């Protein structure tokens, strides 16, 4: 019995590491621009499809395709930000958030039309290979997702803490006008946050696509990373990691003990509880409102 619980937990952590990557995207954009990007799941999906196209159409080897996916996703993030978000600086948060909802529908629809709506298998060198740790078995993809995820997190935490650009992004999130007066290029900060969010999302997308399959509605998986971001605190990079892992774990255990579909419900109930008790999350900054 003990190994089964461990197996459930490991499975949960592995899914959680992908949630964490997507949650990181939510957090980065929120941190820098103060909005919530509802198209985060779609960025993940498009990233996975880009990788798929590079591997199947251009026959690129894994590493080349992977790196090129990161570059192309980054460009996509930048273009979306430049065309749709940049001109909304200073507009009400509501408008910008709803624009990302619109973008989400648009990206899903375009992907379906371009790539077709049929499920597609996505292959990486570690597809379908498993890894035994004692009595436990996990997918190699999960192992890479955990390792890659943690590495990305360390990089970004350092980035926000120490680099000038990172500090600038934090300042921009705090108060756009003041940051601008202090000489921070708001446009650049916005662009950068979208680039990074798209890149981490595409990494999550490739891992996720490898574990299941590609189809335009896989983006809804991304929506389920939102509770993770919220649990950790919408503006906490480290919180995204812990939130992601925690939500993965809760889903795994809920699925194991409440039955197959309990995992769909648990994160959303958690969201309401968090919002009532501690809207700024476990590690987020508490905002004080001034007139």
């Amino acid at each position: 019995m003990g190994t089964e619980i461990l197996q459930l937990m490991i499975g949960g952590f592995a899914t959680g590491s992908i949630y964490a990557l997507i949650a990181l995207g939510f957090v980065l954009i929120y941190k820098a621009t103060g909005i919530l990007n509802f198209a985060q799941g779609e960025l993940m999906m498009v990233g996975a499809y880009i990788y798929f196209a590079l591997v199947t159409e251009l026959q690129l080897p894994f590493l080349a395709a992977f790196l090129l996916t990161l570059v192309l996703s980054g460009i996509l993030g930048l273009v979306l930000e430049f065309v749709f978000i940049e001109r909304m600086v200073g507009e009400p948060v509501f408008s910008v958030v709803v624009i990302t909802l619109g973008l989400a529908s648009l990206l899903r629809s375009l992907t379906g039309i371009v790539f077709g709506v049929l499920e597609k298998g996505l292959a990486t060198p570690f597809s379908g290979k498993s890894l035994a740790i004692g009595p436990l078995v996990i997918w190699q993809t999960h192992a890479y997702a955990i390792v890659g995820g943690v590495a990305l997190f360390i990089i970004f935490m350092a980035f926000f803490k120490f680099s000038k650009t990172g500090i600038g992004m934090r300042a921009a999130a705090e108060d756009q006008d003041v940051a601008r007066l202090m000489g921070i290029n708001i446009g650049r900060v916005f662009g950068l946050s979208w680039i990074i969010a798209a890149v981490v999302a595409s990494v999550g997308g490739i891992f996720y696509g490898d574990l299941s399959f590609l189809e335009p509605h896989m983006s809804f998986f991304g929506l389920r990373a939102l509770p993770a971001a919220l649990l950790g605190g919408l503006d906490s990079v480290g919180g995204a990691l812990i939130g992601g892992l925690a939500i993965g774990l809760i889903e795994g255990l809920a699925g194991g003990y409440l039955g197959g579909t309990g995992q769909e419900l648990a994160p959303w109930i958690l969201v309401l509880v968090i919002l009532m008790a501690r809207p700024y999350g476990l590690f987020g900054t508490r905002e004080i409102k001034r007139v």
Partner: protein
Amino acid sequence: MSNHRKPMIVILALLLVLALVACGQQQQEAAGPKGESATSKEETAAGGVGEVRGVTGDTIRIGAILDFTGPYKSAGVLMRSGIETYFKYVNDHGGINGRKVVTFFEDNQSNPPTSLAAANKLIFNDKVFALAGVHGSAAFAAIYDLVEKEKVISFSLGHATQDFEPLKKMVFQVPTPYYHQAARIVDFFIDDLGIKEPKIGVIYQDDAMGMDALKGVEAEAKARDIEIVAKEPYQRGATDLSTQVLNLKRSGAEQVIVGGIFTQAGMFLKEAQKVNYKPATAGISPTLNEVVFDVAGEAADGFYAANCFSMPDDETYVQAEEIAKKYNVEPNPHFLYGFVNAAVLTEALEAVGDEITPEKVAAALEKLNKVTVPGFVPSITFGPDKHFATGASGLFKLDYAQKKWVPAAPYKEPVGLQKK
């Protein structure tokens, strides 16, 4: 009191009165003593020559509601091709008693509200006489009332029990119900694989399809005194079955029945292989699809799936292939869903003769007895209180090396259900 409200109240009252008058008039028309005025209005609306909706002197309009962009999208395009191909063949051979078939298709994403919109469009805008196929169990359920009220003969493209229970005058189902398929799989483990004391686990989609399969397993298991050790639901479109697989493994199930579709069957196999769990696995007919290879890879080897349509090498398959070849298409399971429905509908329409009405076609369908059509192995028998064609299905085994399905057990009715 306040003068300014007057115009609004007047308008409101006016609207109400007019609405009631208009409704009243309509009612008179509909329920008038002769009862003919409404019908004659319908006829002129149908643009026919004093006949029923969708039927003219030289054409008959037939529609279908399929999934082109929803969860079963891979099937929809092929079903459409099956319906089109058969009716093209009919038209090239003089049509149905001289009438050419004109087809209309709508996308429903297997989704109830979209189906309702699609059915309204087909019935009121395109004015079809019959629906040669409606895809999705819940999607079909959303339009039962409409097709019954408007008297549109409708064929299911699925296997749901609710299509024929309770009986609906205009609704018919050719493919073997999931209920009977799942029961047949229980028999397959006992009789064909020779497992005396099976420990059966069920993993099923938590919708009408999965529940039908689960109930079929339960009924047959009860009739044959077999134990079901685990029942694991998953949500439609689920992308992670790891907890379900672990729970099944924990329960000690040695045979697993998949009440779901190919994607999740593939995921189950892949996930089970990961945790080194190797039960004999068999799925209902929606799992009989090449996508299982793509999703599961080599873990798909040895998977069984139930089927009621013809597979290559069968006599009925060759007949279907001969027709399909003329139009440069290849019959495969989903193609045959559409193809067979079109063939059965044509059979009944031809039997009715010149004076086509929905009631007559329904009666002709109910008279079909042990009829075989190309593309479908079991013989088709409807009756006044039996609107599903057959309870028989066969099993096929997935051979990963050859990438094909090979016959594993013959087409038979489930033993336990017949006893009752």
